[in-house]
């Protein structure tokens, strides 16, 4: 998460209007879900990957790395689609061509949808996402929970890294036995540290008038007409691909 947000923050596409990015990514996703053939999902995969890598300046290596996680789920998910089971007259496991093609088709569509989503999250930091959610009238409770969880993940990583470093500096994790002990210390002090940290954080908020709702100045992004034009043309092209 830290990694993804960092990439998004550094991406040149961060300055693009988040709403346009969201619309672009969702429109493509809808097209993919409507698709009945291979051409459209493959086109979307190519288009979105290309934009994310060239315009978003996300390196191929990082992009591949982040795709590994859903890829695992994808593979696990299509196995039951591909493989047939028969219980009568003993257990039979079989693979049909029909099931195989269906699995592959599903995988390609899912991959295309994931890449659409990745385009958005790899170019939009959490701050902008939260603001978009507000724009689309997402309830404050959900937004603030998301925000606090996000912030605390960052704090958690930070405290973990600090403790880990402190342990390494004094010879922690140098043997297997010692690693186990060090890790148990790390986890327990992490919980204590986090508890204390959340108390302090609460105080910090109250000191500036926190009363249950976090209200901040919105960040400003102007939507670019060029981008609208681009979105419309690509959607028209995809619609054409959908027809044939």
């Amino acid at each position, binding site marked *: 998460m830290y990694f993804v947000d960092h990439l998004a923050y550094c991406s040149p596409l961060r300055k693009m209007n988040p709403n346009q990015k969201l619309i672009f990514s969702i429109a493509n996703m809808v097209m993919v879900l409507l698709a009945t053939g291979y051409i459209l999902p493959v086109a979307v995969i190519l288009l979105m990957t290309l934009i994310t890598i060239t315009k978003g300046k996300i390196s191929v290596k990082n992009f591949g790395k982040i795709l590994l996680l859903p890829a695992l789920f994808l593979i696990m998910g299509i196995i039951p689609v591909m493989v047939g089971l028969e219980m009568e007259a003993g257990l039979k496991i079989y693979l049909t061509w029909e099931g195989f093609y269906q699995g592959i088709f599903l995988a390609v569509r899912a991959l295309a949808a994931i890449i659409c989503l990745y385009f958005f999250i790899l170019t939009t930091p*959490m*701050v902008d996402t939260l603001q978009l959610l507000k724009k689309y009238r997402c309830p404050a409770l959900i937004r603030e929970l998301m925000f606090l969880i996000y912030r605390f993940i960052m704090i958690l990583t930070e405290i973990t890294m600090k403790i880990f470093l402190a342990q390494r500096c004094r010879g922690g994790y140098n043997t297997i036995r010692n690693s186990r002990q060090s890790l148990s210390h790390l986890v327990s002090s992490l919980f204590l540290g986090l508890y204390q940290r959340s108390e302090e954080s609460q105080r910090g908020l109250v000191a500036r*008038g926190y009363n249950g709702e976090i209200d901040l100045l919105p960040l400003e992004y102007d939507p670019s007409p060029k981008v609208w034009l681009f979105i419309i043309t690509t959607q028209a092209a995809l619609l054409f691909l959908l027809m044939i």
Partner: protein
Amino acid sequence: MEQQWILHLKNISYNYPDGTLALDNLHVKIPKGQRIVFLGPNGSGKSTTFLHMNGVLKPQKGEVYYEGQKLSHKESKDLWRKVGIIFQDADTQLFSTSVYQEISFGPKNLGLSNEEVKKKVVEAMEATDVSKLQHKPVHFLSGGEKKRVSIADILAMDTEIILLDEPTISLDPKHATELMEILEELHKKGKTLIISTHDVNFAYSWGDYFYIMKEGKVLLEGSYQEVFKQQTLLKEANLEVPWILEIYYDLLEKGKIKAPYPPRNKQELLKYL
């Protein structure tokens, strides 16, 4: 002498949940528009006192007065509008995902319009030299940058009183000097500034009024002439005597100078020589 007290903590006691007595019948009066310094060893209750001044902590015993008005529990909840606090550990204070939004939190809570908030945020960012960082997420900042953002947080709120808990501790000399310049300007504007510190030498040349704390009590209070005379009491609070004074007394004893008033800073001392 008729003195105007902006904030007055009367007979405050506070126990932490684990039973340690943090404040023991504390009595503190803050003169308006002055530079007040709280000196004292770790754990003497300076930070707890600050949290009471800002209304985050409610006194378990005792009363808080603002401009002579006794505050009810409900009113002391609103003390943050008048008293800004810059925490010792910037991480305690910073929570937002971008610096710009972080600084907007306080003024937004004050109920200002978006235009006004924006103006205050921009001013505060310029004063603390963090304009370049405004779109950065807070967790990508270095320690000193975080500190400066935490100062901007409070400057943007433009409160009457500003509390700084060990402000210079994570600043490099350049930014520490800049902070001092900001404080000087705030002082000229008539703001009341309260600093807690261990740095006796800095405190001695900066402060107008001093509180020396020990074990949740005020051990000693007064102007610099009154406080720094009491060398035995200072020792009791584990504080050193400022080096300027030490030299001054030494020279006075040896009859090398005949200045009636102790010097405040290096320049004054040099003038005497």
